[in-house]
């Protein structure tokens, strides 16, 4: 199967579980299972090529200028990880089906899981390192959703946030590292980067790149000092913990280290940083794990410890170390996923994961007991189980590693870590399953259905199979190792076997197991000592760091952004004036090239009205209704001004917008006091007045200077004038710009308009459904109500004028392309026609006659505009390419048909929907409880009393 398909399947498939949600839990899990299975089968079809040592590659260019292309490759390493992700994914899906309760939304869970799966597969199959980072971030996001899946649990939300913060910051560092790496290699394709070992390691930017990339890897793979997020992510449902936090996501960092191993490893810097971090993580994780009482916490720290082990092996930089690392990844994935699922089973059946409340489960849950014990013994490194083999290889490698010029440091610490590792495994088995059967379990434990124990059992079969017959895994692991090593080193010849003879590694192993048993024997005093030791609490530190970062950000932004509009406006005005003044004093101003035009009486009168109204606003702005009337004058005079300066389109838009705005503001004013109270002190108002005057004068000066001069460069309007008819087929340049030249902008704008209207609707809806509802319904008018609710004259008049308004709207729409008009103005005109009906005949009467909801009208508008744009794809043209032609249908004259007109229909619909939805939402707020909905459109029924009744 094509690699594209393997990566795309989980993403595309992630739509299905949500859709299948209502079809039942089995259908939902089944479809998820089938998607994963298909992807896995598709992957396996590439197995022969991979085993033959080929690298399967495929790709298309995406953003070649940025070096970001969708190129995928499949080699041994990628195949190995993809197999783990999809294979364990299948088991997890089966397990999750039975784990989730009826209360959990299964579709949501599996949708997130598939998104995560797709992102993970994307990481391991990416050839382009930038593409890899895209998928990398997607895993962070989807794991955030998965960890926080139980939204009602605060730990879940906090853990999700912590995981996202830590891995997100690591991702940021990784981007930097990847960019440097790509810069050195001259390409962002991994296949090219991997060929440039010498160039990269010789570059002075090697160390920064290494550190940044390792930051990404260490945060993702929970290496010290970023290990703390993983245990907190355990608030996730157990299938998530088993999948993300043992088998797949936390291995992404390790995957990347292995992927870049040929170019990054082998230097002293790599060796010191990676080995040390791995070693510390391994020991620290093992020690903490021993003293954790929560089963999942214990397993989380043990995962941290094992990830440290793998990191350390990669850090040694030897081929044998890399091979041991790959082998341990396989083994760890099998036994740890089995253990997590067992912990989930215990939690599910006994309703607790606290080891102190468990014990004696051996007899109650025999199946679980066998599974968990075999997996835990494998983790402890007991022979004939796969954990033993890779641990032995690790010890062998540790024994040869000299860190900080001490030949004993690494072996001693590795043995110490293994000792604790064995100890917590024994504790897990001993304190959970052995001991007397208790009578105070929160629930009666018993073995779960086969759907839950089957998946871990299958994994344990692999654990034992590899443990007994290591040669089964050997060829595969060697293929994987070969692709890790690339050309940098030869695959080691060592055979995987249980018995190596009396080598140091065996003695270290024996020390670890025996030591582990001794630690178990003296566990009680050890635990007491541990509890008595003060330790830094990672979560507290993390929260303190976050809190101080927030405080710092607030200290920086609060002086500028305190929520008061006057402050923003003042800062903005001062900044712009200062910059303009700087430009004015340092730049040169050419001589005026145009003469000042003479002003007639009418112009001066209009100007005087505008000034008067504005000054009136300044004086009367605290009286809200009066200031609204004054705004009406300003709007009117501006419209007339547009006419005087030959911009009829603008004038029409301004006029209609004016009407709609006033209605909207009046609707809102109904809920507000009549007067704005004085809130700011006199000095502050003086200061603001000063800023306003300076700002006004500056704007005047700029406009005056600008209008007296020609532009320095030819202005863009010349292009529009030249091409409006030729290219857009319309003589009205404004309209052609809106629907053609700048069609994409307009498309964005109508979407924004629609979103704004929907937001208004959502906010008022929330108000109406909330505690405010009762207050709104029982609100009494603040002044006596005069006159009729629905005066007859107004009803009749608006009815009569309605068809006329529609006709004018239609006319303005049609002529828009060549004469002033267009979809936007027509939309406003038609909306006002509707609003008139609301005002005259009332809300109830009008909305009961409404056939299409306004949301749908907005959606239809955006859709029509979008489809018009997409239509041009069918003619192999870019989005929103317009076309027009002239047709003649007798008896009419020849007329023009343009795709832009179709686009304009979309604009029209979106405008009508948005205006009506926002007005309607506001007026819904004003509905009152004590006012009955009238039966008739008018307050007086004009039909004669003796008119024949309808039913007669």
């Amino acid at each position: 199967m094509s690699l594209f398909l393997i990566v795309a399947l989980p993403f595309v498939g992630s739509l299905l579980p949500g859709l299948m949600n209502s079809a039942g839990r089995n259908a939902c899990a089944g479809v998820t299972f089938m998607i994963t299975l298909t992807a896995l089968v598709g992957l396996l079809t590439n197995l022969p090529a991979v085993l033959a040592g080929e690298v399967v590659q495929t790709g298309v260019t995406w953003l070649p200028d940025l070096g970001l292309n969708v190129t995928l490759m499949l080699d041994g390493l990628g195949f190995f990880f993809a197999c783990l992700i999809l294979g364990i994914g299948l088991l997890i899906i089966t397990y999750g089906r039975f784990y989730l309760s009826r209360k959990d939304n299964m579709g949501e869970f599996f949708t997130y899981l598939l998104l995560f799966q797709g992102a993970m597969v994307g990481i391991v199959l990416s050839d382009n390192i930038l593409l890899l980072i895209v998928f990398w971030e997607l895993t962070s996001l989807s794991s955030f959703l998965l960890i926080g899946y139980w939204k009602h649990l605060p730990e879940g939300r906090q853990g999700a946030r912590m995981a996202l913060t830590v891995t997100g910051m690591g991702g940021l560092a990784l981007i930097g590292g990847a960019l440097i790496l790509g810069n050195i290699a001259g390409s962002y394709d991994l296949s090219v980067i991997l060929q440039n070992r010498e160039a990269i390691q010789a570059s002075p930017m090697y160390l920064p790149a290494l550190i940044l990339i390792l930051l990404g890897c260490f945060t993702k793979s929970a290496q010290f000092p970023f290990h703390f997020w993983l245990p907190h992510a355990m608030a996730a449902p157990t299938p998530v913990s088993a999948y993300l936090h043992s088998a797949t996501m936390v291995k992404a960092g390790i995957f990347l280290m292995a992927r870049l191993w040929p170019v990054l490893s082998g230097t002293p810097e790599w060796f010191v940083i990676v080995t040390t971090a791995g070693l510390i993580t391994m020991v620290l994780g093992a020690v903490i794990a021993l003293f954790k009482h929560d089963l999942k916490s214990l397993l989380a720290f043990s995962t941290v410890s094992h990830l440290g082990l793998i990191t350390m092996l990669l850090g040694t930089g030897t081929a044998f170390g890399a091979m041991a690392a790959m082998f341990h990844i396989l083994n760890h994935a099998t036994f740890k996923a089995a253990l997590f699922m067992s912990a989930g089973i215990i939690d599910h059946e006994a309703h607790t994961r606290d080891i102190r409340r468990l014990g004696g489960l051996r007899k109650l849950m025999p199946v679980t007991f066998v599974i968990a014990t075999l997996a835990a013994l494998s983790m402890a490194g007991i022979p004939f189980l796969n954990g033993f083999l890779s641990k032995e290889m690790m010890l062998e490698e540790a024994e040869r590693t000299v860190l900080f010029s001490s030949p004993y440091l690494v072996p001693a610490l590795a043995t110490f870590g293994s000792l604790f590792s064995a100890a917590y495994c024994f504790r897990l088995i001993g304190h959970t399953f052995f001991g007397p059967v208790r009578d105070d379990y929160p629930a009666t434990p018993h073995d779960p259905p086969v759907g839950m124990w089957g998946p871990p059992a299958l994994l344990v079969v692999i654990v034992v199979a590899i443990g007994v017959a290591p040669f089964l895994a050997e060829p595969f692991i060697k293929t994987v190792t070969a692709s890790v090593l690339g050309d940098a080193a030869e695959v080691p010849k060592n055979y995987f076997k249980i018995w190596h003879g009396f080598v140091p590694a065996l003695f270290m192993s024996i020390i670890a197991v025996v030591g582990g048993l001794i630690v178990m024997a003296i566990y009680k005093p050890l635990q007491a000592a541990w509890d008595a030791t003060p330790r830094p609490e990672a979560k507290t530190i993390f929260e303190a760091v976050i809190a101080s970062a927030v405080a710092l950000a607030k200290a920086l932004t609060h002086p500028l952004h305190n929520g008061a509009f006057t402050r923003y406006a003042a800062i903005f005005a001062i900044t712009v004036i200062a910059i303009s003044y700087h430009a004015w004093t340092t730049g040169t101003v050419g001589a005026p090239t145009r003469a000042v035009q003479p002003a007639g009486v009418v112009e001066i009168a209009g100007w005087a009205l505008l000034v008067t109204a504005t000054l009136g606003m300044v004086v009367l702005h605290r009286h809200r209704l009066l200031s609204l009337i004054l705004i009406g004058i300003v709007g009117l005079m501006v419209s007339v001004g547009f006419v005087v300066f030959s911009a009829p389109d603008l004038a029409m838009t301004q006029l209609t917008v004016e009407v709609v705005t006033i209605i909207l503001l009046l609707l809102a004013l109904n809920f507000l006091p009549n007067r704005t109270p004085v809130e700011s002190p006199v000095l502050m108002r003086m200061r603001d007045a000063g800023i306003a005057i300076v700002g006004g004068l500056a704007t005047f000066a700029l406009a005056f200077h600008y209008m007296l001069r020609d532009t320095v460069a030819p202005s863009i309007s010349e292009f529009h004038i030249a091409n409006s008819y030729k290219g857009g087929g319309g003589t009205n340049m404004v309209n052609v710009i809106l629907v053609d030249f700048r069609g994409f902008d307009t498309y964005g704008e109508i979407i924004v308009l629609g979103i704004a209207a929907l937001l208004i609707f959502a906010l008022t809806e929330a108000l109406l459904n909330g505690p405010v509802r009762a207050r709104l319904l029982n609100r009494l008018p603040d002044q006596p109500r005069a006159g009729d609710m629905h005066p007859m004259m107004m009803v009749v008049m608006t009815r009569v004028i309605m068809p006329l308004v529609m006709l004018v709207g239609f006319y303005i729409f049609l002529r828009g392309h060549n004469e002033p008009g267009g979809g936007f103005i027509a939309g406003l005109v038609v909306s006002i026609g509707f609003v008139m009906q609301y005002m005259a005949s009332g809300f109830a009467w009008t909305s009961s006659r409404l056939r299409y909801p306004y949301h749908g009208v907005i959606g239809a508008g955006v859709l029509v505009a979008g489809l018009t744009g997409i239509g041009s794809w069918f003619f192999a043209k870019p989005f929103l390419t317009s076309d027009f032609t002239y047709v003649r249908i007798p008896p009419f004259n020849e007329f023009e048909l343009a795709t832009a007109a179709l686009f304009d229909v979309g604009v029209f619909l979106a405008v009508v929907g948005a205006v009506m939805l926002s007005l309607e939402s506001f007026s819904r707020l004003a509905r009152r409880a004590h006012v009955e909905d009238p039966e008739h459109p008018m307050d007086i029924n004009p039909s004669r009393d003796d008119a024949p009744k309808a039913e007669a």
Partner: protein
Amino acid sequence: MSFAPADLMNYALMGAFAITALSQIMAVIRLWIGPSTADRILALDTMVINAIGLIVLLGIYQGTQIYFEATLIIAMLGFVSTIAYARFVLRGDIIE
């Protein structure tokens, strides 16, 4: 005394401009002194009507029909805001 028709037209036009502008200014004065809100709303309504006149006159003066849609829209929809103001003053709620 004899006028050429074009002159007559021009004088009439100038006169109309002056009268409309004057009435516009007087409407503003009414709006300014009030005293009641109803006076002010009526003043604004008068100004809207005068604006139609001004734009039509401008069209005649420039000999173009391109502004007539603007006047059509004012004539057809300008009253809506007046009604809205009036409803607000009388009933508070403009859509009941």
